[in-house]
């Protein structure tokens, strides 16, 4: 176990996601004053990591056109154009520290993931590599020298001390907000001012609901101050340099107070540990009483196609009895009770992805030298997909086809629109998936055991190896799905889970109930599963 990894675990233990003191970021997420200089070795390391961890979204050359890009909204940045959002200089360019923070904590409010699995040095390698992708001139030495604000409105934006919000200063801040921000963010900061706005590529965006606590840049006073003064290039969020100095310092504090530390922390997933508790009896059903004895772990799930109101947490539990393991996923979906054809159709699904590696491969689909095993549950309508598909096509001629989860191409890479019959998984277009369906209308049994070693390599385990039992249940806006499999497996296409072992684990959920089309899946980052001895 590397040091950094231990530190991450210690952090996860010491401060479960809701107990964290945001503002006090774990030190290896926010950069030190003096980053390591770019050396050929570091740059090369950055390049290798980029191919592994970033290219699926950002493209091999960083042009924002990776195979998963079409699934994402907001779109992955074109790093060659270098049109960066999170900037801290008057020239509206990111410093090395800005890039380090973005790569470390991801960009909440988008699919850009955090990278707690990487050491600080690896992340610096990525910073230097990302800079090398764009031919633009970088602020000379600003990032590298780490601070000293240049004179005048040049270089790093200097930040005044954090002001105290008293009755009087809060009123002043509220007035400044009303005059300078409310036209977009709304008088209460809920993002309900002028809403129909567009980013520089013509994609719709809207003023942030500041009461939600979603911050694409670090949610510290210093960083929010710079967001206000420099604006967010490429979006309607303007430079409010009129406020620079004391006024923007007040505004930053005022804006941070519109959300709670807990809310903000909840949007910044960290690597967590799920313990599979050992017990004599393990549950086989979402409603089994045994689940009560397993401590739940609440994980952040991020919709690839962002919506402010999509389910944002999945609660997981795990138990084993020495021979079988049961894993439960519970997530809420308040919008389920819409029109039947949308609410009940095949789009509901959940998947668990595991890697035997504690330094797991890319979350999307594993890698050649590092396979992943995917257990997937789908709601029962999938079985009669062909009929259902036709109904839906009639009702919604332009329905996003990636709503039909295709495990053959990983949760991150789903078939393009209108590619249904060719690109959707055979389990959905043949009766193959019908095998496990029970006729009880509330209890469903349907799961697949799948394997991948990189893009396009995913395949179902042979029928005789398919041994996952899964039962899903939907009740009062909540889905619960229980997966069950024997721990050990002698088949080399399946994960062998030994008591006492630790593996990497991630979850994906397809929220079928929403009336919207594209990218209805939400994913977690890699966490770990510890199987009690």
């Amino acid at each position, binding site marked *: 176990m590397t040091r950094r990894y231990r530190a991450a675990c210690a952090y996860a233990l010491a401060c479960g996601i809701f107990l964290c003191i945001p503002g006090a970021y774990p030190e290896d997420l926010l950069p030190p004053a003096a980053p390591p200089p770019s050396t050929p070795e570091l740059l090369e390391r950055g390049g290798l990591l980029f191919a592994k961890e970033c290219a699926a979204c950002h493209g091999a050359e960083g042009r924002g056109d990776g195979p998963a890009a079409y699934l994402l909204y907001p779109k992955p940045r074109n790093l060659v154009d270098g049109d960066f959002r999170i900037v801290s200089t008057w020239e509206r360019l990111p410093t090395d520290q800005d890039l380090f923070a973005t790569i470390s904590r991801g960009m909440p409010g988008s699919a850009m993931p955090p990278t707690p699995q990487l050491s600080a040095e690896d992340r610096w390698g990525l910073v230097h590599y990302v800079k090398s992708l764009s031919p633009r001139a970088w602020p000379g030495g600003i990032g590298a020298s780490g601070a000293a604000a240049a004179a005048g409105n040049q270089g790093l934006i200097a930040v005044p001390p954090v002001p105290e919000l008293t009755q009087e200063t809060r009123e002043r801040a509220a007035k400044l907000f009303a005059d300078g921000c409310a036209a977009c963010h709304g008088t209460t900061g809920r993002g309900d001012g002028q809403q129909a706005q*567009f980013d520089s590529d013509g994609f719709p965006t809207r003023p942030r609901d500041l009461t939600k606590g979603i911050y694409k840049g670090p949610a510290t006073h210093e960083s929010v101050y710079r967001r206000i003064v420099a604006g967010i*290039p490429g979006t309607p969020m303007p430079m409010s340099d009129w406020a620079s100095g004391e006024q923007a310092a007040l505004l930053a504090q005022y804006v941070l107070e519109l959300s709670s530390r807990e809310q903000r922390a909840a949007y910044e997933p960290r690597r967590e540990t799920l313990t599979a508790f050992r017990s004599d009896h393990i549950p086989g059903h979402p409603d089994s009483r045994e689940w009560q004895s397993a401590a739940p772990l609440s994980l952040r799930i991020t919709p690839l196609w962002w919506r402010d109101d999509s389910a944002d947490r999945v609660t997981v539990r795990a138990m084993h009895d020495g021979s079988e393991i049961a894993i439960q996923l519970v997530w809420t979906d308040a919008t389920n009770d819409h029109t039947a054809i949308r609410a009940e159709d095949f789009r509901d699904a959940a998947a668990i992805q595991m890697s035997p590696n504690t330094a797991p491969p890319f979350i999307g689909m594993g890698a050649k030298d590092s396979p992943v095993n995917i257990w997937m549950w789908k709601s029962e309508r999938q079985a009669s997909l062909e009929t259902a598909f036709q109904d839906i096509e009639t009702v919604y001629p332009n329905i996003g086809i990636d709503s039909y989860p295709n495990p053959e191409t990983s949760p991150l890479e789903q078939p393009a629109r209108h590619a249904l019959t060719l690109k959707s998984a055979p389990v959905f277009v043949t009766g193959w998936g019908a095998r496990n369906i029970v006729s009880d209308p509330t209890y469903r049994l349907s799961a697949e055991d799948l394997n991948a070693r990189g893009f396009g390599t995913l395949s179902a385990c042979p029928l005789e190896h398919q041994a996952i039992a899964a039962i899903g249940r939907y009740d009062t806006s909540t889905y619960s799905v229980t997966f069950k499999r024997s721990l050990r497996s002698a088949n080399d296409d399946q994960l062998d889970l030994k008591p006492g072992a630790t593996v990497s684990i991630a979850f994906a959920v397809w929220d079928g109930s929403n009336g919207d089309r594209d990218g209805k899946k939400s994913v977690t980052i890699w966490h770990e599963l510890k199987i009690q001895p």
Partner: protein
Amino acid sequence: MCNVHFPAIALGLALLFAPGFAEAGNITGKVTFEGPAPEMKPIALSADASCVAMHTDKPLLSEVLVLGEGQSMANVLVSVTAGLPEKDYPLPSEPVVLTQEGCRYAPHVIGIRVGQTLRVLNPDGLLHNVHSAPKSNTPLNKAMPKDLLELETVFDKQEEPFPFKCDIHPWMQAWCAVFDHPYFSVTGADGTFAITGLDPGDYEITAWHERLGKRTATVTVAEATDANAGFVFSKTPPASPK
């Protein structure tokens, strides 16, 4: 010290009395629209009640096509696009002014020189954000709250027309082109333009409209005269010259 001053004075004198300077000519003309004119619709200003209040007497019409008497066309940018000698033209000290009045940009189309100051005014007493979307120059997006009455900016590269907009009032739009020479003019309500102070010679001039595209013409300018050039736009683009 002396040896710095002396050559400078000598150069000045030499320029003043330099022989052989032909007297400059001008290009003037009118731009008109041909065919049935589409009706411009009133803009729904409902996004901002303050803007609605500023236009209670007369609705604010879309400025995508502004026609005057006899279908004369305003807001067409006419500029010399070929035939100019390569040289540094003196920069006007006056800024170009773009104002945001009544939740509307005026003028609707501006030409400006590389390095010349653009002064943006905000007499409206409310928040606008001045958001330009150039391709070569650095994009600008600055908030102008009610107390910020003006801001200034400059462009450092020549560029074809690009939009200015306000994200708070999505109908607000202006166009700006940046030139490395002074030979451009925007038509007024009467459709006329005047490009002045050209050395005699053959030039290509281009008329640009935000929706109807470009038309070009070649013009010969003789000493101390006005060469005339007219442009006619219609909804159908002209046949390509090939």
